[in-house]
């Protein structure tokens, strides 16, 4: 386990570590030694198999280097090797916490090349499922974040709601985690009788439970102490690194693909003002710290509930999938579609030469891009904060490595 790059510590001991309010903390009185701490790949707090090589001077981190690729599963090569429809199940598997959103992104990219219309009921079901999945994904994100920094109980609570949500998905498509429900041209099948009212019941319960989580975890004093003022992402940094999703909104940059480049039914939803986009305000510390990002995720769950309710309100009977042949031949061309995944912009860039198999099927994973900021965030933090910082980026390793 050797590294080829030696990096300069960007914080020197005499310069000290910046504290909130412009002061600095010096560690000149303590004699420390540079050491390299290897976290991962098997580490419970890295949300999968990621390795971070942390260089520390005493307690102070002077450099960090993420090493990826422990879960590289060749998704892009497979995209160029199997037929268009066969690739759909693989999309489930790179961001396995938000499989519906991945299905949606891929289907939309292919549909853009085909230039076809989607039945309205199918769009409703797509939006509904994608938003439910967003809730599920954020539940895990916040739950495991709590777990990482020492709060075990909220994790169990959040899995309770997630189990319910998975049961809902199981009823509609038969799978708990890897759905392949959203297909090219529509969705796989119609909702079973009574399903929509079950979703409504879920929403009713969730709203009550959400309050509990919010008070129990997000506003918890210990949680705030562990996350506020840590891992601050400034506006310039966020843009420079191309961050998207809650990482961007955690730095108060008002950007959400659902509103700003509307796809599917989102322009109607925006016109009805059915949901808002929560923006962090640096309430507990500095703007753009870990707490802000966790808070944005928590608030987004409630906004998703609003969108789900909007869909339940407006849904009408109708067909759910167009007339799609088993073997697709996609007209030649290339298209890029970016959608708002729970973690940020999930982009699919597909190229077709008119045949049965794609020429290129690129996935722009939001976690992959968001994780790059780690190298910049870590120096200057304390060793115990690494976990808080990594957790707040909310990565799914399946997607960083694809």
């Amino acid at each position, binding site marked *: 386990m050797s590294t080829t790059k030696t990096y300069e510590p960007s914080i020197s001991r005499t310069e000290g570590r910046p504290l909130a309010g412009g002061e600095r903390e010096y560690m000149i009185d303590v004699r420390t030694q540079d050491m390299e701490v290897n976290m991962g790949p098997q580490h419970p707090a890295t949300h999968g198999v990621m390795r971070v090589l942390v260089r520390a001077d005493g307690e102070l981190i002077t450099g960090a280097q993420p090493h990826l690729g422990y879960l590289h599963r060749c998704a892009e090569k497979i995209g160029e090797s199997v037929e268009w429809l066969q690739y759909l199940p693989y999309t489930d598997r790179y961001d396995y916490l938000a499989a519906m959103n991945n299905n949606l992104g891929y289907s939309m990219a292919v549909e853009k090349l085909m230039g076809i219309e989607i039945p309205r009921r199918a769009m409703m079901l797509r939006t509904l499922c994608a938003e439910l999945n967003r809730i599920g994904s954020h539940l895990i994100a916040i739950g495991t974040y709590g777990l990482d920094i020492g709060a075990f109980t909220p994790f169990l609570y959040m899995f309770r709601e997630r189990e319910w949500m998975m049961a809902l998905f199981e009823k509609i498509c038969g799978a708990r985690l890897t759905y392949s429900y959203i297909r090219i041209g529509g969705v796989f099948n119609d909702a079973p009788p009574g399903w929509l009212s079950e979703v409504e019941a879920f929403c009713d319960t969730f709203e009550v439970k959400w309050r509990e989580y919010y008070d129990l975890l997000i506003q918890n004093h210990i949680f705030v102490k562990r996350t506020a003022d840590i891992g601050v992402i400034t506006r310039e940094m966020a843009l*420079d690194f191309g961050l998207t999703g809650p990482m961007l909104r955690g730095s108060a940059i008002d950007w959400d693909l659902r509103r700003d480049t509307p796809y599917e039914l989102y322009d109607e939803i925006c016109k009805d003002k059915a949901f808002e986009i929560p923006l962090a305000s640096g309430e507990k510390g500095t703007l753009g710290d870990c707490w802000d990002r966790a808070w944005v995720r928590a608030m987004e769950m409630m906004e998703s509930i609003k969108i789900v309710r909007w869909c339940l309100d407006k849904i009408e009977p109708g067909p759910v999938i167009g007339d799609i042949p088993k073997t697709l031949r996609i007209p030649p061309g290339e298209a890029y579609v970016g959608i708002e995944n729970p973690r940020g912009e999930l982009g699919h860039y597909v190229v077709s030469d008119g045949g049965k198999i794609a020429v290129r099927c690129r996935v722009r994973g939001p976690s992959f891009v968001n994780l790059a900021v780690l190298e910049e965030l870590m120096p200057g933090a304390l060793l115990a904060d690494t976990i808080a910082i990594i957790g707040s980026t909310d990565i799914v390793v399946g997607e960083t490595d694809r």
Partner: protein
Amino acid sequence: MNFQGIYDRIRSIQAPGVTGMDEPREPNPQDKKDKGRSGDPYVLVDPQRLPEFLECLRDDPSLKFELMADLTATDPSKEDGYLWINVQLLSLVRKHRLAVKCLLPKENAVMPSSVSVHRGAQWAERECSEMYGITFEGHPDPRNILLPEDWIGHPLRKDYEFPEEYHGISCK
């Protein structure tokens, strides 16, 4: 702004390296072989001048492409002598997107790195170079990112052959 507006603006500020553009079109009814082209329009740029081009678009007040959403490459086919470099730009202020494409010859796949313009390009370029064998000149950390350090070949090239074994573990 729509694509035409963006392209006109790029022309009028004389952004460096622009060589042309391509738009989707309908198939020609006279020609049976012509299937047309679907999808997104894009701007063609000289790969050697890509960083300058990106910088110009980032700083132009009416384009403001301050976020690089994606940088990737494509190997269109075994026979083709060129790789494509595909860049997706996004402007948060103006709310528009732009696809940029460069043609890079396969024999001499060397181009300047864009890290100085968008730091987000760093990992994307590392991925590109290990998957396609492109060298990005001036990249601060040109190691493999997803594949092991001693991996042989560039998997996303169309002529890639799957390995037989790796460190004693058979691949078949």
